[in-house]
């Protein structure tokens, strides 16, 4: 009985101390701590913690506190901190597809005066990604691009080759559906930002402008997608950047585009060595991919702005970019940094570099949400409701124009 009481008392003390431990931690925070947020996978964090951070910490006598925060959540956190007047984050690495709300809400610093700190060797298109209305809000960090994954075993079984143009893509989709009884080519058709990336690529491949939406190229792209739609995997309607990995690994898709982090999930962790990748297909006019990746920004009110700027310079350096390329297979943001990846990663790394050659940034617009919605609504009406392509695109062209005028552009 006494022992029971002792155990209960000890456990209670442990729980109570834990309750207050959270409060005490705050005050123990050191001034020379650089707090940064990134959205990374476990392998990526390991490289950051073991190979990237220590050299900077040693050189600048500081401690880097790196926190995992996804891009969508960065906005929520910064908004709360800014409103409270207590900014606790010094630097953010943010997905370049989710920058507009940060600028619109005034959550990140205008860093135009520090533009000269960008090395001359940085790929120029990466710099424009961080600009809004001619002002620089973000430094380049990591370029990224979707690659096309395919199931080599299944392609060999049916005597198929990865498609290099739209005609071949349609043919592959038709053959796979005929052989398997269900579509096996996937696109991300969840009608949100995931789909927008693919729509941008199709429209540009046909020579169109997604911001115009009813030009010849856009009409060609949507007409092609309408033709392709019946041969696609039914899982396309559930495919986003996360679920696509599962669909490829579980073989409900034999061909689909996704971000390169899928290589680790599908091939390394999932052991699906038959899943290969290539740079993708071209449209009737050209090959085009959307330039994604992460950029670096400084939140308004950052407690360690100067240290954050130093760290940004360090991340853009040749030394770091080469390490990131070699250890993680990330394409380099610099023209003079090359990495040596492990053998198993090489074909995927080549696919990334092949896709990078045709990667184009998306325009930074304050009315981005309207463009995003227009592109997706148009696709929904055309491929699901079967509406006329030209009339539908005219309607959504008008909506984009209205949004543009409303934004004073």
């Amino acid at each position, binding site marked *: 009985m006494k022992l029971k009481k002792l155990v209960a008392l000890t456990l209670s003390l442990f*729980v109570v101390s*834990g*309750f*207050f*431990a*959270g*409060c005490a*931690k*705050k005050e123990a925070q050191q001034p020379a701590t650089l*707090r940064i947020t990134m*959205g*990374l*996978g*476990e392998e990526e964090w390991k490289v950051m913690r073991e190979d990237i951070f220590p050299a900077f910490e040693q050189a600048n006598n500081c401690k880097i*506190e790196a*926190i*995992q925060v*996804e891009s969508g*959540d960065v906005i*929520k*956190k910064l*908004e*709360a*901190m800014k*409103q*409270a*007047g*207590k900014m*606790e984050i010094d630097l953010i690495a943010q997905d370049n597809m989710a920058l507009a709300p940060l600028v619109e809400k005034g959550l990140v610093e205008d860093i135009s005066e520090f533009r000269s700190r960008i090395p001359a060797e940085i790929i120029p298109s990466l710099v424009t990604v961080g600009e809004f209305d001619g002002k620089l809000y973000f430094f380049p960090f990591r370029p990224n691009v979707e690659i096309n994954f395919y199931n080599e075993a299944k392609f060999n079984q049916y005597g198929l080759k990865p498609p290099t143009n739209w005609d071949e893509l349609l043919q592959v989709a038709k053959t796979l559906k005929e052989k398997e009884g269900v579509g096996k080519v996937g696109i991300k058709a969840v009608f949100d930002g995931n789909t927008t990336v693919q729509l941008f690529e199709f429209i540009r491949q046909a020579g169109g402008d997604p911001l115009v939406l009813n030009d010849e190229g856009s009409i060609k792209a949507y007409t092609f997608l309408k033709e392709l739609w019946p041969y696609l995997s039914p899982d396309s309607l559930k495919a986003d950047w*996360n679920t696509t990995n*599962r669909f490829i*690994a*579980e*073989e*409900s898709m034999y061909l689909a585009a996704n971000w390169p*982090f899928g290589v*680790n*999930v599908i091939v390394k*962790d*999932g*052991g*699906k060595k038959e899943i290969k990748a290539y740079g993708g297909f071209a449209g009737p006019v050209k090959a085009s991919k959307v330039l994604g990746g992460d950029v670096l920004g400084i939140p308004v009110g950052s407690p360690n702005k100067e240290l954050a700027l130093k760290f940004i310079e360090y991340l853009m350096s040749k030394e770091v970019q080469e390490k990131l390329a070699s250890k993680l297979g990330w394409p380099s943001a610099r023209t003079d940094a090359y990495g040596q990846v492990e053998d198993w990663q090489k074909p995927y790394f080549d696919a990334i570099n092949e896709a990078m050659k045709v990667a184009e940034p998306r325009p930074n617009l304050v009315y981005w949400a309207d463009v995003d919605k227009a592109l997706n609504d148009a696709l929904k009406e055309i491929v699901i409701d079967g509406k006329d392509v030209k009339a539908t695109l005219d309607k959504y062209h008008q909506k984009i124009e209205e949004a543009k005028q409303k934004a004073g552009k």
Partner: protein
Amino acid sequence: MKSRKFISKLFFYLGIILIVLFMTIPVYILFRVSFAVPEDVLTSHPKFLITRFEFKHWEQVFRSGNLWPPLYKSFIVATFTMVLALIIAAPASYAISRFDRKIKYAIILTLFFTRMFPNVGIALPISVTFLKWNLMDTNLGLVMAHLIEQLPFIAWILVSTFETIPIDLEEAASIDGAGRLRTLLKIVLPVAAPGLAVAAMFTWLNSWNEFTYALYLSLTTKTLPLQIYYYVLRGGFFQQAAYSTILTIPVLIITFALQRYIRSDYLGGAIKG
């Protein structure tokens, strides 16, 4: 007549079996994937039964350093939310339950009025206030945020519980010389134990699973649901499953520990003779 009875019984048990399977199969699949050899499940025809065990995924989760701090934080926060909610709500609910019917329901409705707004809508202003009070990234801040959510529900459950306890019991205690507080502690609360257990379990589980406030108010140490969110977005299929399976273990323990207090005959002894 006998065969009709047999058929209805058969359907009854069949229905129960179906419901049980419906509830347990997803948990089994989670468990199965967490121990799966990749080629057994990453195929268009995955194997349902476990034929080979792979412990690597659990090992990866245990070694990742992403398990113990969130587990500890979630446990501390859920336990304190439960304890504080009971301490605050039990006496309050007891008092409310003894009010006139109209006043009682007016108070309950007022409490629920605060829950009419979705969490996502009010999480930002609440987080801003907590940030100003230096409660960011603290267990205390998260407990307070969770109390906002849980108190109206727990009060509602406990008012219903106390209502069912006859006032005669308190009068009898009073005749025997017990004061108000003694009556509450020695007579009312023990009789209300099943209701208290339900309320405690409900609060603990809700706090354990809470996501929105944790997202706003956590920075360096995450709670378990936030960490699972991370694995779902960034991790492999097997780590997701292993981590999610681990999350269910404390829930099973707490539910098992508290469910023994839940009895339907709790007033049996109290109102006899």
